[in-house]
């Protein structure tokens, strides 16, 4: 199937692009934290907002681990629907996070991006895991 042969690398590349942007945001999160705080802020406020962003990024990395483990173990690599959903979600996440980084958006928007573009593919991945290992269905 030629569709499969281009969907698998496309899905991989969008996941990696999303991952690279998340790592980039992790190392340059100062401006985004400052954007979430009022003009005058104390060090404790900065630290607590910083902590929230670190937690959000760590949750994103955890969801990546779930999805990548499903992808590389073969559970969802050749499943067209999950592939399409994942490619779309991660591509939108990459663009949204690009704006998040360059336009220095606030932290609240990150939670929305996380919910739509990271949680959704990971939840479908877990459903597929349960389907393959629990209910013994074929991985396709």
């Amino acid at each position: 199937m030629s569709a499969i042969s281009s969907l698998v690398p496309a899905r991989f590349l969008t996941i990696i692009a999303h991952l690279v942007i998340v790592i980039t945001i992790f190392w340059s999160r100062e401006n985004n934290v400052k954007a979430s705080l009022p003009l005058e802020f104390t060090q404790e406020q900065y630290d607590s907002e910083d902590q929230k962003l670190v937690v959000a990024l760590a949750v994103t990395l955890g969801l990546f681990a779930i999805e990548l483990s499903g992808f590389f173990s073969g559970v969802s690599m050749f499943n067209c629907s999950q592939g399409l959903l994942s490619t779309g979600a991660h591509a939108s996440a990459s663009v949204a996070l690009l704006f998040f980084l360059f336009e220095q958006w606030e932290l609240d928007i990150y939670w929305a991006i996380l919910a739509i573009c990271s949680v959704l593919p990971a939840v479908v991945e877990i459903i597929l895991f349960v389907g393959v290992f629990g209910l013994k269905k074929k991985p396709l």
Partner: protein
Amino acid sequence: MELPETIRKRLEGFSRNVLFDQTRMWGFSKENDAVLSHDKRVLSSLPLQMSLYFNMWFFPLWWISETVMLHFKYPFLSDYYKFILVTVLLLMTLFEGIRLYLGYMGNLQEKVPELAGFWLLSILLQFPLILFQLFNEAILIQPLERGVHIVLAIFILTQAVAGFLALRDMVSHTASQFHLRQFD
């Protein structure tokens, strides 16, 4: 395009003598005395092939990120690091291309010299270069560079481990085939 004959001989000798213990392997294959016919097991390693395939797709992304970042930080580097980083980028590009080609040839066509060449290139040349890029703070590592170098380092590590296992299986199989052929 094949490797030159002298290089193939040297790499094959290296795999058989330096990497793997001949006496231990011969004892290992003697246990399969029942199988006197030639073993038709597929020796190509799936994890290694997956790693190579995705590495091949990731390489342009890595190259563009690295070149653009180098372009942006070039005025801020000291003179010797300017020369070093341009050289390192050229070398890594060259090694990556040769490495991926040899890995594909060696794994898919089950050729020991090519696979050994790929494994040596990865461990001895590409791995130190990527560690240099990741841990030397004096070259002004940018966040985007950290991201792509971490991914490439993970690829090289998985290829080192999977390549070693594939090489060991291939060498022990070809050695046992050579010994079994005496009984034909």
